[in-house]
């Protein structure tokens, strides 16, 4: 019945738990960040559709429409420059909102969350790991977009501090809002398999109506009004205010960059995401008893 002592599978007794303290949040967040990042880069779908997509789109559109200039009168920029802010905004939305919404829905469905719930890992460390993954992938993606635009498509990047300051707060607010909204939205798909099918159209529609692919001013005004409810429109406009000449503000809905309203709308969505996300987050599937 039992194997010989030499081959017997034994395991040394566990260390006595006694005074050992639970690991701190910082340590755990780092462990989780490592897990999340490693999983992300090894998941080919995520890398292609979340990470490379805006880069590919920028390269594609800039190559196809390269000669067309966008603007009014004699204030024009080349197409790549006009397209860049929209692609940065899209990238932020994909790496934060879409990546969170899909990955958490899948992890809830396949039992990853349940397994974590059985360990002493606190929820905060799990989310910090996710946030770290969003920050790293999104920062890298944005940096690559800027490099691609500047080096390959001759886009002149802003040189004054004020614009980069605008870039910083729009980027941070947009990423934060996208992340918490992704957490909140992860409860919408009923299964992990449907997650991509549920999340992707939302993102796609928002891209079309938020002035990412077509200049916002070319949309019918009722559609502009609808789009203005959602954060992507403001994220894109905020990015345009960073990368386009001051005079092109005249192409915006009110003829100005509307920084105040941009900050307000993004902050409001951040708050909504936080409240809804923390209230609706579940470790287990709906049908799991």
């Amino acid at each position, binding site marked *: 019945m039992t*194997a010989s002592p030499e081959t017997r599978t034994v395991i040394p007794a566990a*260390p006595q*738990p006694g005074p050992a303290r*639970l690991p701190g949040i910082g340590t*755990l967040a780092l*462990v989780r960040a490592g897990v999340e990042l490693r999983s992300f880069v090894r*998941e080919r779908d995520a890398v292609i559709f979340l990470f490379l997509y805006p880069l590919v789109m920028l390269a594609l559109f800039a190559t196809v429409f390269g000669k067309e200039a966008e603007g009014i009168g004699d204030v024009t920029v080349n197409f790549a420059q006009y397209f860049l802010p929209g692609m940065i905004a899209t990238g932020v939305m994909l790496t934060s909102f879409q990546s969170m919404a899909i990955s958490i829905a899948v992890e809830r469905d396949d*039992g990853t969350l349940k397994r974590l719930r059985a360990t*002493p890992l606190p929820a905060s460390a799990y989310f910090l790991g996710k946030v770290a993954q969003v920050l790293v992938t999104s920062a890298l993606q944005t940096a690559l977009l800027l490099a691609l635009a500047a080096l390959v498509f001759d886009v002149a990047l802003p040189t004054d501090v004020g614009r980069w300051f605008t870039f910083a707060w729009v980027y941070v607010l947009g990423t934060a809002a996208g992340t918490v909204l992704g957490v909140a939205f992860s409860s919408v798909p009923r299964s992990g398999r449907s997650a991509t099918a549920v999340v992707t159209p939302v993102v796609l529609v928002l891209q079309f109506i938020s002035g990412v692919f077509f200049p916002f001013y070319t949309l019918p005004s009722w559609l502009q009004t609808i789009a203005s409810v959602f954060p992507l429109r403001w994220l894109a406009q905020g990015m345009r205010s960073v990368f386009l000449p001051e005079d092109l503000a005249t192409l915006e809905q009110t003829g100005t960059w509307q920084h105040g309203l941009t900050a307000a709308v993004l902050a409001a969505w951040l708050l909504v995401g936080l409240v809804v996300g923390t209230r609706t987050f579940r470790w287990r599937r709906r049908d799991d*008893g």
Partner: protein
Amino acid sequence: MDTTGTISSGRAVRVRGLRKRYGTPRAGFKHAVAGLDLDIDRGEIVAVLGPNGAGKTTTVEILEGFRERDAGEVAVLGQDPAHAGRDWRARLGVVTQESRDLGELTVAETIRATARYYPAPRDPDDVIAAVGLGEKARTRVRSLSGGQRRRLDVALGIVGGPELLFLDEPTTGFDPQARRSFWDLVESLRDGGTTILLTTHYLDEAAQLADRVLVVHDGALVAEGPPGTLGGAEARTPVVRWTQDGEPRSERTERPTELVARLARETAGPDGEVPGLQVTRPSLEDVYLDLIGAAPETTKVAS
């Protein structure tokens, strides 16, 4: 709520009148657990047997804090699982019945990361070796076989060095050899003082590992006792089978030798042999099937 989680003696699990039902007012309710009592002492290994849908997983997941109960008292390591925190979880090990998560990390990465969630984990390399995944340590979880995945589940359940370990059908998909070495692993956990609640459909596994076996059926306890005495003494009464006048016969008797001697005198053929003679003592499996089939009122056996 009792929050003195550090008492090191006494009961590991105490359950009284546990009830849980599933369903909706419209579709109707069905009891999955209907008034279950359960005590597990520290260091004890208890196996829960019962047919599919008996309520084993429901019970275990209530004890793990995953599911909410409708009624009853539950204390696991002195705390109510519905309200227990990180300190409590650090003392538990959980292997759930089904899992299909953890794709892209390797076996070693997964176990090492999980070890770091605990205050006093086991050495991940020891754990990998103990479940026999040494050769697969650098393989991505996605490409493990079913039985190898299950071994990883067990590894993740014990890496935190739990005082109390829940194993819900841990050996599903194990090959016979893996099952034997899993048994050895459980024995060594027992030697280390780990309390274990195990569900299984393998009667030999229960007989081999458990100090005490519970049989549940339709959410209620049907029988309870050490594997050797389950079902009471008369359930173990030997059965003598033979053939007489072309008809199969059987008789249960405490004195099989006497019966065989009588048969030899009265019914043996010219060659002195009783046709089709067999003397068997019911196995745990026979007793179990009896218990489940008849589902009589609870029979308790003193241990």
